[in-house]
């Protein structure tokens, strides 16, 4: 029996094996060994890399250390993107483990935000959650929560406690039975090909004539460039969780989607076939569902 909970768990416990190496130009007292870690897909880089920082700081002089930042194949990694998103967006076609270069100097002010402490991450995370709830419930749910609930949500993410996180998060994912879903679907589509950092629009889960929308509908409306025919069905096992495939070699051509599929269930599969035909190779799309990833 496949269960929501199993899916949620697998999403939560998604890990990316990563190899951290110190940037060659960094000055070290002795040679820096690479550092290997399993990074949670749903977390943030700066939240889970204390160990990395410690590891490399050991071989460096105190005066050479300033704010840590990460880079993959020349692209500075934005810490405020979820790790899974960064990986799928930039590195899903490369072989595992994911090779990340660690910098302590020349912070790219243009590309990255500073992350002086975990409080900044928490503030960013909470603002994402609040924004999502504004779309879903006119902020009613998040506003009704107590401070300790917010804290529990954050601590759940920080300490990688699934139950702790979901005990609160489920309230954010509920909607009244008489309605067909949230007010709007909170999502962002990230693409490497475009100049814009992401696409975000208002999108209702139900069409004006009462039909439930699918993820395909959303893509068609919001990001038509991502929609083109000719991906044969057998190759793509299913359009929906293609982001799950994205890290495989052949999967790199497929749109990568972050989406909470629990919302409108079986109907998505009914239109799946149609959407499969409409997928475009060469475009990388990410639909970010905030609760999952933010």
């Amino acid at each position, binding site marked *: *029996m*496949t*269960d*929501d*909970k*199993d*899916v*949620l768990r*697998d*999403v939560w*416990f*998604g*890990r*990316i*094996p990563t190899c951290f190496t110190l940037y060659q130009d960094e000055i070290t007292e002795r040679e820096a060994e690479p550092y*290997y*870690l*399993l*990074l*949670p897909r749903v*977390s943030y880089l700066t939240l*889970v*890399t204390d*160990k990395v920082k410690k590891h490399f700081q050991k071989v460096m002089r105190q005066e050479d250390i300033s704010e840590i930042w990460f880079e993959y194949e020349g692209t500075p990694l934005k810490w405020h993107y979820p790790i899974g998103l960064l990986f799928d967006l930039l590195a899903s076609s490369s072989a*595992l*483990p994911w090779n990340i270069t660690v910098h302590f100097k020349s912070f790219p002010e243009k590309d990255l935000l500073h992350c002086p402490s975990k409080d900044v991450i928490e503030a960013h995370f909470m603002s994402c959650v609040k924004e999502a709830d504004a779309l879903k419930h006119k902020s009613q749910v998040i506003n009704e929560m107590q401070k300790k609930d917010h804290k*529990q949500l954050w601590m759940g993410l*920080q*300490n*990688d*406690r699934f*139950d*702790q996180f*979901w*005990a609160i998060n*489920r*309230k954010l*994912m*509920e909607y009244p*039975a*008489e309605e067909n879903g949230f007010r709007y679907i909170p999502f962002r589509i990230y693409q490497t090909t475009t100049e814009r950092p992401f696409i975000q629009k208002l999108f209702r889960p139900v069409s004006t*004539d*009462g*039909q439930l929308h699918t993820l395909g509908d959303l893509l068609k409306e919001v990001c038509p460039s991502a929609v083109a025919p000719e991906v044969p069905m057998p190759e793509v*096992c*299913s359009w*929906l*969780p293609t982001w*799950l*495939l994205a*890290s*495989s070699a052949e999967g790199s051509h497929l749109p990568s989607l972050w989406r909470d*599929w*629990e919302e409108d*269930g*079986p109907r*998505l*599969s009914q239109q799946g076939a149609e959407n499969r035909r409409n997928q475009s190779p060469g475009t990388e799309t990410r639909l970010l569902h905030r609760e999952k990833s933010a």
Partner: protein
Amino acid sequence: MKAILYSQRNEGPVPRRPTGLCAVSVAEHRCGPAHPPRSRRGKERRNSSGEWQEEGVRGRWPPKAAPAAMPSSALWAVDLFGRVFTLSTAGQHWEPCRDAQLEFKRVSAARDCCWGIACDHQVYVLVGASDVPIRCQEEAYENQRWNPVGGFCETLLPSDRWPWSDVSGLQHRPLDGVALPSLHWEWESDWYVDENFGGEPTEKGGWTYAIDFPAAYTRDKKWNSCVRRRRWIRYRRYKSQDAWAKIPSEDDPQQLPDPFSDLSVGGWEVTDEPVGRLSVWAVTLQGKVWYRENVSHHNPEGSSWSLVDTPGEAVQISCGPHDLLWVTLWEGQALVREGINRNNPKGSSWSTVEPPTSENGILHVSTGVCVVWAVTKDRKVWFRRGVNSHNPCGTSWIEMFGEMMMVNVGLNDQVWGIGCVDRALYFRQGVTQSELSGKTWKVIVAGREGDRSLSGSSFSLHSAGCFFGNEVRGSAESCGPGDTDASWEVPGPASSPAGLRGKESWKGPSHATANFPEATDLSSLRLLPLGLEEPDSADCHALWAWVSGGGCAVEAHTTLKWFTTQSGLCPSVQTLSLSITPAQTAAWRKQIFQQLTERTKRELENFQHYEQAVEQVRNARGTSSSRHPSVWVKTGALQWWCDWKPHKWMDVHVALEQLTGHDGAQDSILFIYYVVHEEKKYIHVFLNEVTALVPVFSEAKHSFALYTPERTRQRWPVRLAAATEQDMSDWLTLLNLSCCESRRMHGRPSPQAIWSVTCKGDIFVSEPSPDLEGPERRLPCDQMFWRQIGGHLRVVEANSRGVVWGIGYDHTAWVYTGGYGGGCFQGLASSTSNVFTQWDVKFVHIYENQRWNPVTGYTSRGLPTDRYMWSDATGLQECTKASTKPPSLQWTWVSDWFVDFSVPGGTDPEGWQYASDFPASYHKYKTMKDFVRRRCWARKCKLVTTGPWLEVTSVALRDVSIIPESPGAHGSGLNIALWAISDKGDVLCRLGVSELNPEGFCWMHVGTDQPFTSVSIGTCYQVWAVARDGSAFYRSSVSPSRPNGDCWYHIPPPPKQRLKQVSVGHTSVFALDENGNLWYRQGVTPSHPQGDSWEHVSNNVRHVSVGPLDQVWVIADKVQGSHSLSRGTVCRRTGVQSLEPKGQGWDYGIGGGWDHLSIRASATRAPRSSSQKPASKQNGQPPSVAGGPWQTPGPVCC
């Protein structure tokens, strides 16, 4: 004791030899009057081909493969052509009425029937098709007197009664003189002798003896028995269900000179005696008002019309569901009937209400429970403010928006109207108990099926069974042309119809008719169809003439699909259906899950040795658990019902800590920190030891009880209370998740699960472990883990093929959908699909007590020693109308307080019961010695929750039993036998129940001579039942090919006891009497399935369930634990084996507060070989004494 062939009307010919059993032949030589009476034989010959098809399904056999329909009721309407349509609350299409030959002017619907006036001005009634026939018993007594010459003979003394008489002896009643009341009835069988005398079988042809007429009769003939009599019975059945039955107007030509012009039914809430009583009121063209006498469920046509005088000429009449009755007069005023009550449903007097404006009189009124809507001659709509039972006239008129031809108030005071100009149907949106006038008019845009074929004769076939049936209709032409027409979605009633251009042309006739209301009814409507007949295709939306919502239940949680055009799908397909969703969902979800698993494998397989980025935080507390990595999950402040005396709620701090064991298994500990005498202490509970978490909703506290085996033995659970409902639900959900997690329990319960219900209606399921009934090392009962499933039920019964049925407190039947969660379990603890809205209704009773004093008579001033003047049944608690709250916060009131007349012992016309003093036995009439009196007030409350249940429509149930899977017969493709007792006591057998269609298709009625209360079917199709008189019955020859069996055998109850429940396992038959005694049926063999005698097993039993392995489980009434006494405890019979099916002792499990249990799905069988082994030492123990965990080894076999 004897089992006697209990003769039963057309139950078919000489009973066939049943499979595996040989009931009849054995019965015939074992027991006395095995031959049915001669008269019955004659019937058999005539009837030998009828068999059981005739009995129940009546032409619907074989049942069509129809998926489950949603619980629905229907709106009735008549279009301008006089065609009658119904619109289901679950549907999107108007269904044409089956009897298309008749054209109607008016219809007035109730829940189960619809009355109408056809164009021939005759009154017709259509009784909805039901699986349970309407049948009435006719009886006659044969009286004889003994004389020395010929013995007993028909020659009576001149002063004696008739040789054939009614029960009183006053009326002559020869058998052939008893006639059918009308053409719409048929005899079910010929006359036969009733051999059951007060639960006891009689000998020698059913004679009962007495010294003289009239006297007390006994079964046994004595030396002084000079007279005897016996009872003959015969059933007649209403045969015109699902068809318009003409009400004969023959009565008296003098009295009914003119045709009817309007009619209204209602009043079903005034009284429920007799069952299904209706008030039917009609108005004739001459303006007279008539009342139809004696309309009830068993007499759907009523008996006669009686004239009710009115002070003016009546034009139109409207009768609400309760006691409101309004009439419009020719002059434009309204008459209001006063004095309608249960003793006088016709009312006593009229009072007049003036129209809102003097220039425009009232044209039309419609009444609900506490509303009146009216239309005046200028077509304006008015709402009458302040109407209720005490003030049926109301206070003032409020003008509403819109112009209507007519309005109609239906159930729950919902309102429908027909637009004045467009003749479209409007529904008043937003009508609630607090806002009875609603918000807006919303046009109903449901399409009509088969618009063209209406006049064709093929039509009636096409729509057969459309009314209340469960069938899915073909949808080829369902998309009527009206659906696509834009003019449908008109914003308000004022726009003009497509067929009639311009307002002028329409306003004209409407004005004309305004002054002559009758003309509207009789002539103008007749003219319109002529003009419109032709362009049916062009004018594609229906023009309505009349609407009736009296049978249409729309509530707050009802979602109607009437207001949007459908996308071509047949409405029924979109309704909730059990068989479609899970498979699709499963495939879809499976795929995602698979891919997730693949991804995890790909990304992690070769990198398992990598370090985790986030280490699990170690527990810094330094308690004993610090050896394991432990993490804080949830803490909070709760209240705890402390373990020591005086017991009270004390504030505690609670923390749930989750830990991962060395084997990766999760476990959690619940810490409860408290302070006593300024000393900090704590207790802790390992969640893998928790056996049940039971929510205890009370008036004041949101609390729950937590059981462990030890706590179960003590009968003293850990009770915790939260400040808010949400807080409690959070804790309960989290604790439940943690418990399931530590026991690795996921998803839906297995088909073998043991289901139970608590007295609060909560549903608990336990997975039987393999050694639950195993031969060695049995799992003690108190270690079973019970987890809650959402929903609210009174009875739940399961079968090992996964079919589970439940019955609510309001007798609604529910079928399990395969989901889990719901109720207070949200999020992860609940399945996403298969959880639906569920509801239940029950009554809260309080008592009004009065004492008599010589000055003022009965008053509410009692003696100082008396009970509260408003109290509960015991008199110990004060319960006033104002202070009494619904049973818990989940319940809300849905009615006002009303006097309950149905209390045992009966009441006087005002509901009082009299006694000499409190507390004493009460009687219905006041005598000289009665100084106190009381009456019972009831108030209806309703609970709405969610759970994995879908309503089984059509028949309300009292009891249900599903055949247990016979061991070794797994995977047989046969339908699953399911028997039930309806709330009226009818025995029913469900056809078409299977794993894929757990709801089945339809009921088949099994005739009985009296109402039944309990039924049970064993693995070999042995059906046992208990009748209301306390005796048992065995149904012979039930088999897959003959699902309703053959005939009943009467089994007398144990001496001086009245049985109330029976349960049949593989071979064992256990019954329970009203005094809590459990009886085992001795001598049951395949060749003699009725057995010989009852043997006492135990007392102190509330409910018994015998499983497919003949395991016996009960709900014990009282069990004493070390700390407390619990009432309603799950117990297993120990030491049950083939040679000792009665078992030896009891093993005590979870309780108290448990009400019902079904072990009948638990067919997990001990290895066959072990069943032959003799059991090792057994411990017997009387059940009223509590014991520890009961470790009696003992195989269960059959």
